[in-house]
C-alpha cells in the first residue's frame, strides 16, 4: 500500500517496539484478525454441512433442481437467480474497491459515489435473498407421501417401483391451490374422479386448475413426470401427509431436515453479515459526507469497512460453491 509495506526493514527494527511490525494501523490489523476468526465460523458451518451431507443415508437434494425459479417465473432456470445474486455481490465489491481507491486520492466526491453504489448493491443482494428465502419457504408446489406401494411408468419410459412413504410432487399452480384447499379455504373445491383431478377456485375471478401430471424424484435425481391414468393411480394412493415448502420442522426438498436447516443457517448467517455490512457502509457514507475523513487527512475508515465488505463477498464465493454448485 505505502512505502512502509514495501520497505526492507530489519527484524530488530520491526519488532523492536514503537512501531507496527505489520506496517498497518492497529484498527486495520484488528479488522484482519476479526475476519480471520469470522472466516473460521463460516468454515465450521460449511464443514458441518459437508459432514452432514456425506453421512446422510437419504439422497441429498440437487441444488440446480431446488433453486431454479426466477421471480414470477416458475420452471427451468437452474441456478440463474443465484448466479445473478453472486454477480450483484461481485459488482458491489468492485464499487467498494473503487471507493477505497478514490479515498487514497482524497477524492471525496468519488468516494461518496462509489460507496452509494456499494450500498445499493448490498440492498439489492439482501432483497434477492429475501425473495429466495420466501420462495424456498413456500416451495415449488409441494407434494404428498404415498400411502401404499405403486408401480408407475414415467414419461421417460422407465418403470419405477415406488414404496409407501415416497414423495410425489404436484406442479406449482395445482400445489398452491391444493394447499389452500387443505387449509380449509371453502372457496377452493376439489373435484376428483374417473381419472381426472381438478381444483376450482371460486374467489374473485374463479378459475379451474387441472392436474396434468405428477412428478417423482423431483429434487434428488433427474425428475420424472407421470401423466394419464398412472398419474391418477398415484393420486389415489396418496396419504394424508402433505408437505409444502420448508421450515424448521419439515421440508418438501428432502427426507432429512438437515438440508433446509443448513440453507437457513448458512445463507441466513451470511445475509446477516451483508445486512451489518450495509449498515456500517451507510454510517461511513455519512461520515465521509460530513467531512470527517477530510479532517483526519486520510480515508482509512473506508478501507477498513471495505475489508469487511470484501470478506462478505469472499464468504459468498465459498457458499456458492459448496451449497449451490457441488
Amino acid at each position, binding site marked *: 500500500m*505505502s512505502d512502509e509495506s514495501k520497505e526492507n526493514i530489519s527484524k530488530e527494527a520491526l519488532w523492536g517496539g514503537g512501531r507496527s511490525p505489520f506496517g498497518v494501523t492497529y484498527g486495520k490489523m484488528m479488522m*484482519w484478525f476479526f475476519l480471520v476468526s469470522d472466516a473460521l465460523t463460516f*468454515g465450521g458451518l460449511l464443514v458441518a454441512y459437508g459432514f452432514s451431507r456425506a453421512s446422510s443415508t437419504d439422497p441429498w437434494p440437487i441444488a440446480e433442481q431446488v433453486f431454479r425459479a426466477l421471480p414470477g417465473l416458475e420452471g427451468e432456470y437452474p*441456478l440463474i437467480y443465484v448466479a445473478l445474486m453472486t454477480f450483484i455481490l461481485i459488482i458491489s465489491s468492485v464499487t467498494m474497491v473503487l471507493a477505497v481507491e478514490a479515498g487514497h486520492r482524497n477524492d471525496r466526491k468519488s468516494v461518496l459515489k462509489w460507496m452509494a453504489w456499494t450500498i445499493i448493491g448490498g440492498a439489492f443482494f439482501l432483497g434477492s435473498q429475501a425473495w429466495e428465502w420466501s420462495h424456498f419457504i413456500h416451495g415449488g408446489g409441494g407434494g404428498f407421501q404415498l400411502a401404499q406401494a405403486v408401480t408407475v411408468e414415467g414419461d421417460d419410459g422407465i418403470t419405477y417401483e415406488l414404496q409407501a412413504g415416497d414423495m410425489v410432487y404436484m406442479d406449482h399452480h395445482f400445489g398452491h391451490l391444493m394447499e389452500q384447499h387443505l387449509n380449509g379455504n371453502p372457496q377452493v373445491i376439489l373435484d376428483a374422479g374417473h381419472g381426472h383431478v381438478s381444483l376450482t377456485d371460486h374467489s374473485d375471478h374463479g378459475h379451474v386448475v387441472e392436474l396434468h401430471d405428477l412428478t417423482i424424484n423431483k429434487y434428488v435425481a433427474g425428475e420424472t413426470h407421470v401423466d394419464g391414468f398412472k398419474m391418477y393411480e398415484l393420486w389415489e394412493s396418496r396419504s394424508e401427509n402433505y408437505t409444502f415448502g420448508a421450515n424448521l420442522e419439515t421440508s418438501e426438498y428432502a427426507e432429512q431436515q438437515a438440508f433446509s436447516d443448513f440453507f437457513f443457517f448458512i445463507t441466513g448467517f451470511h445475509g446477516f453479515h451483508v445486512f451489518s455490512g450495509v449498515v456500517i457502509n451507510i454510517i461511513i457514507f455519512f461520515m465521509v459526507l460530513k467531512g470527517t475523513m477530510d479532517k483526519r*487527512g486520510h480515508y482509512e475508515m473506508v478501507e477498513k469497512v471495505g475489508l469487511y465488505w470484501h470478506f462478505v463477498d469472499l464468504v459468498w464465493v465459498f457458499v456458492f460453491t459448496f451449497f449451490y454448485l457441488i
Partner: protein
Amino acid sequence: MERDDLIVNDSYALNAHHDEAHGKVLRKKIYFVTVLLSVITAIEVGMGVMFKRGDTYTWTAIKWTFLALTLVKAGYIVMSFMHLGEERKNLRNAVVMPYVFFILYLTYIALTEGFANMAIDNLLH
C-alpha cells in the same frame, strides 16, 4: 490514549496515497479482476447446469474444477480487492497461513475419515 486514526507517522500504511496517474493504473487492474471474477462465475454456472451429476469421473473432475476455480476467485478477492498482496509479508502470512493449515487438515480428514466411513458402509451392505 493515543489515537491511531490520526497520522502520527508518515510512513504508516494509513497514509497510503497515490496520484491520479497511478489511480488510473490501479483502476485498470480492478476492472480486469472484475471481468475475470464474472467470467469464472459464468463458467461455473454453465458447468453446473450442463453436466449431470452422478458417480461419474466427469462429475468428479467438475467438482475439482469448481474447487480450483473457487480458490482462484478467493485469491483474487483477498490479494487484489483486499490489497493483502500489497501488505507486508508477515501480515500476509498471519492471515493466509492459518487457512493453508485449515485446508490441509480438512483434506486429511476427508481422505482418512471420509473413506473410512465409506469402507464401513460397504461392509454393511
